[in-house]
């Protein structure tokens, strides 16, 4: 059973290589960013650095990491984990590509 709502945010070409963009909608009150690496992999994270909420979508992307523009914390795009020696996690959200378009999955809470 899929526990995500999938949102279509448009063609892959809208995101520059080694680039990122913030989305018009957020998740649980937080902004979302999608990232595209040099190897053409896509990721989505809550667009707030675990340090002081810096906009990760503005950071420099290298390999599978992004460097926060405010104080240079390095965040792994796949897990959202902050690289040592700093600690923390920027929540990651699942993405999938269908027909050249990118979808971001927002987790749904199950109503018991």
């Amino acid at each position, binding site marked *: 059973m899929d526990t995500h709502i999938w*949102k*279509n*945010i*448009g063609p892959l070409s*809208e*995101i*520059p*290589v*080694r*680039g990122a*963009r*913030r*989305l*018009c*909608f957020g998740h649980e009150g937080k902004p979302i960013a*999608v990232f595209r*690496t*040099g190897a053409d992999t896509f990721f989505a994270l809550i667009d707030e650095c675990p340090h*002081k*909420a*810096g*906009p990760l979508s*503005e*950071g*420099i*992307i*290298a*390999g599978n*990491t992004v*460097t926060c*523009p*405010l104080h*240079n914390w*390095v965040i792994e795009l796949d897990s959202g984990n902050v690289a*040592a*020696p700093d600690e923390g996690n920027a929540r990651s959200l699942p993405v999938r590509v269908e027909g050249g*378009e990118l979808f971001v999955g927002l987790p749904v809470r199950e109503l018991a």
Partner: protein
Amino acid sequence: MNMIANPLEHLVVIGNGMAGMRTVEELLKRDGAAKYRITVFGAEPHVNYNRIMLSSVLAGDKTIDDIVINTHEWYAENGINLITGDAVTDINRSIRTVTSASGLTVQYDKLLIATGSKPLAPPIPGLGMPGVCAFRDIADVDKMLDAARTQKRAVVIGGGLLGLEAAWGLKQRGMSVALVHLMPTLMERQLDAPAAQLLQRDLDRRGIAFFTEGQTEEITGTTHAEGVQLADGRFIPADLVVLAIGIRPNIDLAKACGLEVNRGIVVTDDMRTSDPDIFSVGECVEHRGSVFGLVAPIWDQAKVCAARMAGDINALFAAQALSTMLKITGVDVFSAGALTAADEADDEITLRDDNRGMYKKIVIRDGKLVGSVLYGDVSDGQWYLQLMRDKTDVSELRDRLVFGRAFAEAGSAVSTGPDFAAMADDTQICGCNGISKGTICCAIKDKDLTTLSEVRAHTKASASCGQCTGLVEGLLAFTTGVTTEKKIPAICDCTTAGHDEVRAAILAQSLKTMDAIRETFGWKKPDGCHKCRPALNYYLLCAWPGEYVDDSRSRFVNERVHANIQKDGTYSVIPRMWGGMTTPAELHAIASVAEKFQIPSVKVTGGQRIDLLGVKKEDLPAVWADLNAAGMVSGHAYAKGLRTVKTCVGSEWCRFGTQDSTGLGIKLEKMCWGSWTPHKVKFAVSGCPRNCAEATIKDMGIVCVEAGYDILVGGNGGIDVRVTDPLTRVATEDEVMEYAGAFMQVYREEAHYLERTAPWIDRVGIDYVKKRLVDDAEGRAALNARFLYSQSFAQSDPWAERANGTDAHEFARMPELV
């Protein structure tokens, strides 16, 4: 009522400071969590922080966040119950409880008193007034920073380590600072008279006014401090008075509950007080008649105390010889042990060079080194300290010892440089952070660290004042077995290649892409990192003008979106105002933009132009379009490029002006705007030597004189203020323009990325710059020509491009398609 007995003993710690929490950390390392549950009371409303670094916070080199040692999460993760902002007011030893100011009472099995010390205050009137504070905790620093923001004059009472660091910090924050000291010389307990005089001379040159042999009689004022009255009649006006005359162990609680106290809380070698269930560590204790005021011995106490608590019955504390350093950038002082010969049997050897501001003294007793005072060059300090601690017989080295290790040991079989193998594990390497050899080596081994920056990140060693960087590098080489000869620093951790090497290869091998560079030098990461990418991008741009296509993805956000990111994610916008000149039409346009886009702040900058702060990213292109429409372009206030050209009114209006400084400034700005440089570049042109445009602290400053123009280079405001070096004097504006272009280009071609002209000239020497620009007219013309050529590709307004749709994706969010 608790129905289930908790199997763990309860350890209660009074004092959430450096000693107490270091003891807890040591205890956790020994699996103390299996034996104790821990409650910590702290009188301050903060988590524990590095008190030592308050000096750096005051001086603006660090923020409070930087100096936090353990975060709230750390306490939570380790199951420690932290109660902040609540001082313990009573210890009841018969029923083994402590009670806090808020009325909380908890029972303990073991108690640790780590209450530190209290600042001493002289017995004079006026102490309680606003505007008077000590220098001990965050609250004091807040008071001092507040005063520095709104007021001008500070007086520091006390010329010891703390007083000097307070004075320097306040000076750095822009106050005018006087320092009153009771004794004839500064830091008299750590320095002998010659070293103290050099110190005073250097600080005097940096603008601190000294009142030695000054006994404070009263702090005057009615509702707020107004000045300091000295006994000899001198009066010093002050808005802020900082007391730093010393500290007294904080023994109140211990005394009240009947523990044995003297000057401090008396402890035995196992860090127990007269009650075996109560331990004590830190500045509040007295051990074998000594009290403590530096962290090095306190770290040892914490180790012993934790070992004892964990059940190790062999751990014993023994005080070691200590050294002192002063944390004032550019002032190197070291002192350990005896300052002077005690009698004729002692041998005192000094080496002194007043011009270089260098002084060294060693004291030898019975063939052993017992003291050392160093000023100016302190690189041998830790070696001397080790000789003292090890009580090494130095009779053989006597004649050479004062010249330092390299010289003393040359000729003997011993290699130069510190002997890391022989060095004890607890040898302190980093004094600021109290990091020992053992800690560094363990971190290197356990975490497979291979670079200095990694060691810094994980251990904090050499991360503060940096004086021990060489030692840390040495240890890294020693531990990993990789001998690093004194190597040129690499661009970043992705490579071992240095800046110059890469720049040379770009030209020699015609490397035209980042990939080609990374391949040639065998980069570790195919994509590089946030440090090397902007550097390589710049080097390529500089080497291949018109050819290399700038990679926006390798630019820091400010340079990518052409505005400065602010802490809340909004941006600031600063349009150019050529030479500081503006017009009513431009001001109208700025005003309407600010109103139309509801921009919260409009500010006149320190660079003679106007800043619009708090612009939403989405609004940027429209804001720029409106500014463009009124003829304004980007001021590149975000760029590693030409920022401002400050000017004064000059001969057009000013009664002293000798040349048209405003006009020349505008010409220079029109020639140089839009260029990319290794770091930001600022110019200024003053119309006469009164220098109202502050040309002598700019990357390039022009001071007009009757006979022409003095060209000055390499100045810097900012953190380490550097006054320009004179380059040459020329007669015409055209010559100024040629020198400016040539200077820009030689800096662009040869400095390292993120190196401003000041450190660059410090590195290569002003004589080198003169050789390239003044002595070599042909070379100068060629440099200028290369600059103008590259400018032909650089001078298009990035704002206009973006207002017209370039990089539109940067400024719009992605929608949801339905």
